[in-house]
């Protein structure tokens, strides 16, 4: 096997593309039942090859396997190949995308069964997977960018899948354009990096970021470049200030929400920053910004989720909030935590979305949880899987979310950039080759500057958010599945458990939500068992990718033996989660009046939250109406000023012509006068010269 020409990577990407083309071009003519089969088969094959590649990567012991498909754009010194790479980071991503993607395709076969546009749906889904695979397997930033835009376009098409509803078409358009705003910054960030490094290749950039001389040059643009790229990520991964499209994107079919707007596409920003960790950690300032934005988003979205009554809207805001966690992790330099949470989140959030889809399917399209209730009797499988995922997202001990969330919170509490340590002079060598003396001692460190404070704020907000998350998830769960059914009789008579093609993915995902986190135990627990490899498997697997960052740049401010602090942090976050669950239990099961009274008591707060802080309206006013207004002014300017200015020049010519035309009247006497005048003038002229 040639590690530099590993063409299986090409197959992983190509197969969904072929599936999409078959369904897209011939779908309307093929028998109806073929579309889901073609779509799912493509994903199954792709998943198979992904497994094979990861296996090959594992057995080869190579750092990465690469494959150059062909030369794409070459101009001057810039050469961009369509090239793919699988390393330990993209291995995890590719398994999530093709694995979870396959389950969701399977689910869609049941969910979209009655839709006449089923073939189109599967075609779009396949195209989406193709673009997503480009994004994660790309060996350079441009291939990633092709995927980045491609997933945006597919998301646009899928959100607006039922385009005859103007609201849905609008939501799709909004998603695309808000993402474009992010892409604007992203492209500029790319240019800055390219300007400095002369390459778009991840491997070369990582190499430059980790060797002293080139890191020095890169350091100059790192803050600007990382923040610009991060703004791009706030678009794709729905962070403040560009998160507004994601809740609206729930207009799409539910499997789309699960696949694109929970498990895969929205996490691509996290993936990208983890991929560029070498550059990110060059700039403590950028890290502080990322951590703060992530923390604010996590908290802010969680508060909105507290009061929403649309089952998918709650999940949407929850997704925004959880993505905020991932950005906290990136910001505080816990890249393993970010990817770990990305993975576990893909499991439980996909399960939650698919579960909500199952509920909506059974409720005949109803999404208001105020009209649900008591569904556990009718839909046992959906209920159990939903419950497991709710526990997982709330950080209940031993479930997937517990491990990943604790890793992030612990990172926020303990991590510090080496430049923020007191007594360390900022020197490039401390970022690339040497461990600074105060860190080497292994003792607890004192920090300076605002960045460590930002990390602590991120921890505090993260902790509060953990409680809020547990509360609103269980509010959702209790209102949907417990108590009495609140809908009409008609709907009640149709309640049913979903078909096997829909429940099977639920069961698999719930299983993953149960055990998916067992590769990343907290260190204080694994210490008791003398650190067996599997208990920290996730960390070990990703270690080569984040090597420089972990070794030289991110330090633990509690020193190297921090088991006590870690235990306390974990304990607190578990307690907060349990408190949230119990609060929801009391407020929505034991005594539903509590919720009502709180709502009345804090009417203003409730209304503000229901209105989502009116951010959408604000943006509409400022940016949408604003640019239309500017456009109108520009148009008026164009018609009356620019055009007339040129016409004026024309008219001057015309009027000169008109004056001259009067001279040529055809009147002989007049001509004679002209001649005489001319002669006289000539004589005067000559005379004046002579004198």
């Amino acid at each position, binding site marked *: 096997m040639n590690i530099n020409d590993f063409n299986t990577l090409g197959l992983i990407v190509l197969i969904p593309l072929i599936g999409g083309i078959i369904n897209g071009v011939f779908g309307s003519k093929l028998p109806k039942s073929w579309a889901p089969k073609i779509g799912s088969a493509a994903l199954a094959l792709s998943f198979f090859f992904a497994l094979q590649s990861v296996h090959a990567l594992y057995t080869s012991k190579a750092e990465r396997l690469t494959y150059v498909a062909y030369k794409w*754009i070459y*101009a*001057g010194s810039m050469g961009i190949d369509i090239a793919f790479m699988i390393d330990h980071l993209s291995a995890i991503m590719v398994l999530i995308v093709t694995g979870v993607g396959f389950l969701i395709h399977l689910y869609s076969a049941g969910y979209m069964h009655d839709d006449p546009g089923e073939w189109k749906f599967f075609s779009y889904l396949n195209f989406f997977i193709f673009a997503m695979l480009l994004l994660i397997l790309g060996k350079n930033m441009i291939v990633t960018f092709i995927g980045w835009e491609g997933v945006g376009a597919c998301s646009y098409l899928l959100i*607006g899948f039922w385009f005859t509803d*103007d609201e849905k078409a609008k939501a799709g358009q909004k998603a695309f*354009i808000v993402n*474009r705003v992010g892409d604007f910054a992203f492209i500029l960030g790319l240019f800055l990096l390219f300007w400095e490094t002369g390459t778009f290749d991840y491997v070369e950039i990582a190499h430059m970021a980790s060797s002293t001389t080139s890191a020095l040059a890169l350091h100059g643009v790192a803050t600007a470049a990382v923040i610009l790229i991060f703004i791009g990520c706030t678009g794709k991964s729905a962070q403040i200030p560009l998160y507004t499209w994601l809740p609206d994107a729930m207009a799409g079919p539910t499997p789309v929400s699960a696949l694109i707007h929970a498990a895969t596409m929205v996490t691509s920003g996290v993936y990208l920053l983890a991929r560029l960790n070498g550059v990110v950690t060059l700039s403590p300032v950028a890290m502080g910004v990322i951590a703060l934005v992530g923390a604010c988003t996590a908290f802010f979205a969680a508060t909105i989720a507290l009061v929403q009554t649309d089952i998918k809207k709650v999940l949407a805001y929850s997704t925004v909030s959880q993505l905020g966690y991932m950005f906290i992790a990136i910001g505080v330099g816990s890249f393993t935590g970010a990817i770990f949470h990305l993975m576990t989140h893909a499991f439980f959030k996909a399960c939650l979305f698919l579960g909500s889809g199952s509920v909506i399917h059974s409720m005949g399209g109803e999404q208001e949880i105020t009209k649900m209730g008591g569904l556990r009797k009718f839909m046992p499988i959906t209920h159990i899987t939903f419950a497991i995922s709710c526990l997982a997202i709330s950080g209940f001990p031993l479930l997937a979310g517990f491990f990943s969330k604790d890793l992030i919170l612990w990172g926020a509490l303990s991590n510090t950039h080496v430049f923020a340590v007191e007594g360390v002079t900022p020197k490039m060598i401390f970022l690339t080759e040497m461990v600074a003396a105060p860190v080497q001692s292994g003792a607890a460190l004192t920090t300076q500057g605002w960045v460590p404070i930002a990390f602590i704020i991120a921890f505090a907000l993260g902790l509060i958010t953990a409680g809020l998350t547990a509360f609103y998830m269980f509010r959702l769960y209790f209102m949907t599945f417990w108590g009495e059914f609140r809908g009409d009789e008609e709907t009640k008579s149709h309640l049913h458990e979903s078909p096997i093609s829909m429940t099977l993915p639920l069961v698999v995902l719930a299983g993953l939500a149960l055990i998916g986190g067992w590769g990343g135990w907290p260190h204080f627990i694994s210490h008791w068992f003398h650190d067996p490899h599997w208990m920290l498997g996730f960390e070990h697997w990703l270690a080569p990718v984040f090597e420089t960052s972990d070794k030289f740049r991110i330090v633990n401010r509690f020193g190297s033996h921090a088991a006590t602090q870690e235990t306390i942090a974990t304990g607190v976050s578990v307690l907060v989660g349990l408190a949230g669950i119990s609060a929801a239990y009391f407020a929505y099961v034991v005594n539903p009046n509590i919720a009502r009274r709180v709502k009345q008591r804090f009417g203003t707060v409730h209304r503000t939250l229901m209105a989502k802080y009116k951010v959408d309206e604000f943006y509409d006013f400022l940016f949408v109406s604003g640019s239309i207004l500017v456009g109108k002014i520009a*148009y008026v300017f*164009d018609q009356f000023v620019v055009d007339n200015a040129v016409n004026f020049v024309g008219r001057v010519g015309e009027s000169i012509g008109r004056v001259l035309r009067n001279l040529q009247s055809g009147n002989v006497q007049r001509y004679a006068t002209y001649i005489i005048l001319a002669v006289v003038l000539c004589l005067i002229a000559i005379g004046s010269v002579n004198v």
Partner: protein
Amino acid sequence: MFNSISLLAATLMPSGGVPWLTMVTFFPLLGALALTFVPKLQSGVHRNLALVISLITAALSLGILLNFDATAPLTEGAFTFQLQEGPVPWVKSLGIHYSLAIDGISLWLVILTTFLMPIAILSTYSAVKKNVKEYMILLLLLEAGMLGALVSNDVFLFYIFWEVMLIPMYLIIGVFGGEDRVKAAVKFFIYTMVGSLLMLIAILYVYFKVHTQTGVYSFLLQDMLSVQLSPTEQLWLCGAFLLAFAIKVPLFPFHTWLPLAHVQAPTAGSVILAGVLLKMGTYGMVRFAFPMFPNAVKIFAPFIATLAVIGIVYAALVAMVQDDVKKLVAYSSVSHLGFCVLGLIAMTPQGLAGGMYIMLAHGVATGGLFLCVGILYERRHTKKIAAFGGVAKSMPVFAAMFMIIIFASVGLPGLNGFVGEFLALVGTAKSQFLWHDAPIVFSLVDVDGVQAWGFHMTDTFPLDTKIQAGGEFTAYIFASIATLGVIFAAGYLLWMYRRVMFGPLKLDANKNLKDLNGREIVYLTPIVLMCIFMGVFPQFFLGRMEPSLNQFLGYMQSKTQNSIAKIQLTEEELTAAKDANPEHFKTYREVRMPNVVVASPVKEGWVPKGKLVDQKGDK
């Protein structure tokens, strides 16, 4: 027939070979001639014959493509031409030659022309019912004019073809256009004419200059390129050329003829106008204006880039508020061509390649957009956005194709629009050409052997390389603002698409719209496939342009530095200038010397004169 061809070949190409360029250029002309013999009433024959002629032309142009050798050795000068035919003296006394040739810059534009023409003709089958004969003849004449302008490398010949394309287009708009067609046609004509006349004057000036310097009258491009011009002359002549081309492109603020012309022009006219005719402006810049007057271009560069950037954002904003689909697309053209000009003027390999690629991609994608508008117009006889809504429901196939073309135009990676815009933006961001790194100095300059005091923009001022950091940052700002246009493009195009195609079917008139018929599918499919192919395999196109572009860039660089050497101040003159105006020198250094260390790893494209100073310092 074959005898005559071989006779022709023997005259044109003494070394043997097939005169592909002559055949391609004059085949449409012969076709137009043939059409005049067909009775006027047989419109079916006219259409089919014109289509067959344009298809044969397209097939012949493949001969050019196949015989073009991208690996051919490069010669001295700005361009290395291939498939040279002639030069055969045409008007000997005036030095006008029949000389056709092609290089990587014009190759793809020729192919684009022959590619779009059959599509445009096919689109007229149901749109034009009256005066079909004249229409077809005009289209074929237009094609001949465009092809001729692209392949001629005698400047006078170029000018003739340039004017030849003007008249058919004028008639196409004025006779076959919409309600306001006469006004639109006149405006189109006057604008273009003013530019052309200025260009003609400039051409003649250079022509006489050639005679003064070499003693020979010649309009051949290589002769005109080798002429020596003083900086002042360059500025004026370059201005005249650039104005002519800027009107044609059109560059803000000379663009107001375009929306009017597009709205009034029939579909085929719009397709050709946007697809090829506008590119004549950008092509002319690369082929004539830039290499003839390199120093003047260097001085104009920041201003041209500013206009281009304003045009990008401004036209995009204006496009957003249009209520007429065609006008929206017309303004989008202005915006997109702003990227093109920006890329070209950046003088970097990426920027040039990007500008060239935008010409092709925009031709295909915007041609496609106009075809789509035409299809809608034929069904509903209106182009107002408000008259549509929910059309995707009744026309699903059309919706899919329209969507792909829209995405191509938005610049979605994987489709053709992205490649050009990306290259142009990368090139701009790295450019060092968009900056006056030479100050305006009142100094003694050697102009044609005469020493004269005056204000001069020179590249000779000995500034050290640190100052170029300012140039790089300026370029980055240009790129940033231009990138804004990418957001707006998504905004206005997708918004238009949503209002036309998505949403509920509110109006009864839209409920029973017929989806594409066979003929429409036949002419839209090549556009869609080309959008995809150009997006997925751009190197197929770029690879054949690259040697020519690199040579051109190298020429621009050497030419600029040669002329620098010519007007270089001597040490004494410099001291004198400093003594005369010490304040100016001092402030310039102080203001323009930021403490920024430039660490750009790759210096390519147009590299500022700092080199010259370095060499001096090395001594």
